[in-house]
């Protein structure tokens, strides 16, 4: 295990254009989200996605873990089996808590300085919105708030060994796609992936851990006064999100949720709007007149169940089921709930 001291990292002293913006190496960095010491499902999915395209790109997949202590061997093995080639452990006081730019930004910067990235792939529900935009701003990278990772076989590897790995994202309101190719723009791309499911464990359990010793963050810029469990914590981790119009009543949410398999989250579309807005589920189902604020990805699918002559949501839907205005009721909620069980066959995180 290599242990070295990165010293103090002060974001104000970071060069305007970071070295990684000029030197694109085929490294895929995946910041891991740990809950109760275990990597989240979307974190494992992000690693498996990295592994999937790494073969084409000739890339190395690094799992970045920020913590105040050494990693448990079982966690390292888990990350390896999910697809990581190596683990970069940013070790420092206060890094085990939820990520904020003020407390974790410098540690992530240290990891990026150690391993210059082609892509930094945040898992859904992780630190992507808290750390991703700031990291991109510091290193002059492109940013994609909710994206799919793709490998382009036809183009083949470039002469310097960098393969064509691209990210695709929606423009707002799903009007068009944007394709981001880090080789084409000659800069790294920082992205948040959708909350998918790792299809299979593809890597080996025996992988190296490099440790970066990180100094304490700048004092007093942000401090925690208190915290409580987040009732909506499962929303950004869900592969399938069902958002129900609150006008249909709480019994609609309760009855549909009663049948939903693990990983399919059924919520009141208004009451959980804040958590929905920062989530990136693979599949979203809107029931009734509910605005979908979640950013899906091009691989994702958006379904709507509308009653009467209700207008389509502003974001274009992929699948529509239109029912009479008199349809809402126990029988319908039961039918929808039972249908959701089909998602369990594929597996959910």
């Amino acid at each position, binding site marked *: 295990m290599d242990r070295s001291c990165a010293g103090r990292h002060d974001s104000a002293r970071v060069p305007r254009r970071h070295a990684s913006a000029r030197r694109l190496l085929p490294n895929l960095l995946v910041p891991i*989200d740990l809950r109760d010491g275990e990597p989240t499902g979307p974190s494992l999915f992000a690693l498996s996605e990295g592994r999937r395209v790494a073969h084409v790109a000739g890339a190395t997949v690094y799992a970045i873990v920020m913590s105040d202590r050494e990693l448990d061997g079982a966690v390292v093995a888990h990350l390896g089996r999910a697809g990581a080639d190596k683990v970069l452990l940013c070790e420092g006081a206060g890094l085990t808590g939820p990520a904020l730019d*003020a407390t974790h930004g410098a540690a992530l910067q240290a990891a990026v300085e150690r391993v210059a990235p082609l892509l930094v792939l945040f898992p859904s529900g992780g630190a992507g919105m808290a750390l991703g935009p700031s990291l991109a701003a510091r290193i002059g990278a*492109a*940013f994609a708030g909710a994206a799919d990772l793709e490998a382009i076989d036809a183009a083949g590897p470039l002469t310097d060994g960098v393969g064509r790995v691209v990210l695709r994202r929606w423009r707002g309101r799903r009007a068009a*796609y944007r394709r981001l190719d880090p080789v084409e723009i000659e800069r790294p791309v920082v992205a948040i992936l959708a909350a998918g499911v790792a299809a299979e464990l593809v890597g080996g359990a025996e992988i190296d851990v490099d440790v970066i010793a990180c100094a304490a963050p700048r004092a007093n810029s942000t401090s925690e006064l208190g915290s409580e469990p987040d009732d909506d914590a499962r929303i950004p981790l869900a592969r399938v999100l069902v958002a129900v119009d609150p006008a249909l009543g709480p019994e609609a949410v309760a009855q549909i949720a009663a049948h939903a398999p693990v990983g399919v989250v059924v919520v009141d579309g208004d009451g959980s*709007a804040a958590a929905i807005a920062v989530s990136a589920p693979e599949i979203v189902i809107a029931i009734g007149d509910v605005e979908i604020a979640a950013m899906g990805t091009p691989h994702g*699918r958006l379904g709507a169940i509308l009653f009467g002559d209700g207008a*389509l949501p502003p974001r274009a839907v*992929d699948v529509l089921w239109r029912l009479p205005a008199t349809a809402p009721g126990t029988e319908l909620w039961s039918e929808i709930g039972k*249908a959701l069980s089909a998602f369990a066959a594929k597996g959910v995180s």
Partner: protein
Amino acid sequence: MNVVVCFRAPPPDPEVDTLARADLLALGHALELAAGGHQTTALLGGTSMEAGSLRLALAAGVDRAVRVAADDMTGTDFHTIGQLLAIALRRIGADLVLTGVRSDDEGLGAAPAAIARHLGANYVAGVEEIAAVSAGTVDVVVRGGGRKRRLRVRLPAVLTIAAGPATLAQRPARAGAAPAIEVIPLSDPEATVVRRRTELLGRLEPASRGVETVTSAAALVAALDRR
């Protein structure tokens, strides 16, 4: 304390003065702070045709409205937008900057971080409550790591707003007419360093997806899960 609410999104309907939902949430918090006696300013980068959000903010009770005159912000990357708005924010003098989580056009949510970097300000994403304000700090509520956290953030700070008051706070009616929208021109020598790097947005591709109509819940799920 000077509170600036940054409108990033172009209006959903250019024919009508409207606010995107993300901007409305940020404005809601700004007006609540205004009710506590803080100076509030609405800021937009865009053309005069896109200034409807500023007119609405003035009508709702912000003290000032400032437009950074720019031809086409929709094709501009977030680094440039951040630099552009940071120049304006230095002119205005901002202690606390509030923005929506993400804009409606590109939907990235990265410009606020670029603003914070250029201002040397703290950056906190996904704020749901601004609970209290004291000299030099602001208390906020955010979610992260399975926790709902109350944080004290030192100013200056840039906050992106994920949730807000259901309705805009009503301020006492202004004596006299609403102030005019102030304009900061791009011809400003300090602003000419701004460069547009449209390639950072990515290559635009058409989205040719139709709507599949189904007649049962099972068919809906099957169609959504199809690969």
